[in-house]
């Protein structure tokens, strides 16, 4: 099985777990963005291009189950996945808490993007203080889960010397 196939399988599983399991495991009334975390991890380990593609696919899969406009999560995850890949190239040290920090930062950035684009697309539910409160709690939840997701993605992508071009079929 190629890395691209393994990553595709991970994206499918993450979407199913997000839709079927995490609605039962809400923290402060919110669910985490597993797809966003996977995009963050792939962007971090594999660069901006892979992060953007992973984010798009995971977000699109999640969007199929949401009533918010199709493409909203996909766009958000893709941009955040890309951005984290760009930021990663400037990092010299990788402390242990980095995945949690990136999860928190990515969760907040992704949430704000989701709200911003959602407002432009006419999604009423994201407006107001409630929207900010929701993404803040979701970002905290993302930070908690980020170390596990980063570990999982690293295993799926393979050994460090092969960690490039995740979506390449070579």
């Amino acid at each position, binding site marked *: 099985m190629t890395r691209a196939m393994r990553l595709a399988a991970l994206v499918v599983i993450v979407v199913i777990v997000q839709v079927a399991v995490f609605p039962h495991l809400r923290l402060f009334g919110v669910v985490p963005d597993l797809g966003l975390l996977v995009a963050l991890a792939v962007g971090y380990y594999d660069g901006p291009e892979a992060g953007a593609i992973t984010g798009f696919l995971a977000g699109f899969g999640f969007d199929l189950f949401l009533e*918010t406009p199709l493409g909203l999560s996909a766009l958000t995850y893709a941009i955040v996945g890309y951005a984290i890949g760009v930021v990663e190239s400037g990092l010299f040290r990788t402390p242990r808490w980095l995945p949690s920090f990136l999860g928190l930062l990515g969760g907040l950035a992704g949430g704000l993007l989701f709200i911003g684009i959602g407002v432009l697309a006419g999604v009423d539910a994201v407006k107001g203080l409630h929207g900010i409160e929701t993404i803040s709690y979701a970002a905290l939840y993302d930070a908690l889960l980020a170390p596990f997701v980063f570990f999982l993605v690293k295993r799926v992508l393979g050994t460090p010397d092969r960690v490039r071009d995740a979506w390449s079929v070579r």
Partner: protein
Amino acid sequence: MAGARRASRRRYVLLVIVLTCLTLITLDSRNGRSGPIGTLGGLAHRVVGPIAGAVDDVARPVGDWWSGVFDAGKLKRENRRLEQENAALRGKQTSADEAIRENNDLKAALGLHNALLVKNVTGLIVGRDPGNFDPTLTIDKGSESGIAIDMPVIAPEGIVGKVIDVWKGGAKIQVLTDPQFSVGVQTPGHGLSPATTGIASGQVGSHDLAVQFDAGTAVRRGDHIVTSPQSTLFPSGLPVGTISSVDVQPGNTGVDATITPFVHLGALQYVTVLLWSAGTPGSVLPTTTTTTTTTTTIPAGFGTTTIPSGFGTTTTTGGLGTPTTRGLGG
């Protein structure tokens, strides 16, 4: 050189993704999910539906435990409140029994069918609000059962929402607390003040509905609110909730009220979809008897095996009389 080409390719990929997403968002906002995208969504639901249903059985107790861990303080307060409420309800039991007897007598006298006269489908909830801004329920019955978009969804306690998406083997329900949801409602009327109608809507970040009535409307905390005869979405007389707060606008230009729904969405496992739409001839219950001088209208006296209890019965006497509502929830 290679680095520059790679950076250029990255930007190109991002640009393609962004443009694709913006196109999808625009198409979805304008046209809804039809065509290939709608088919893909239906397929995704069909694949994940059974998994979600199976997970639901296992995860519900885990989810309850999880909620208990993180909401312990809230649960204690809730428990105290429920104990007080229970004591008050016991006190009301006697008068409620009397009201039920009277209600049954009235129904028998008028020869009403104590049943829903509209076809309905009961579905198991297999998924609920997967996202943080998406208050929906997914059930295991769909187009093969006759379910269509905009059909009303109810539970024994009251209205739940409406169908917003349907596919073979499943349907998605927009719940009544969704900010995009609105429904025509009616107050019970007090004394000489007649029943008044309004439009209730979900609110962002709240489990209550907001409604605005005309100035001078007699509405009190605890009033039972039902769907109005003017509602195009629901048959009239279905229980919605109780008035939880009333606020007269400055200058007495109107009355703002909030309605706490009868249904507890988190506790629902099954819901009933009424195969009904506005304009369906001979649909739900309204039984009208016309005499030479007066008209008696008895909308809905629901309560069958699928809709066991409590659906409101509204009686209006003589065309000018004061409507009274007795029903659900009390």
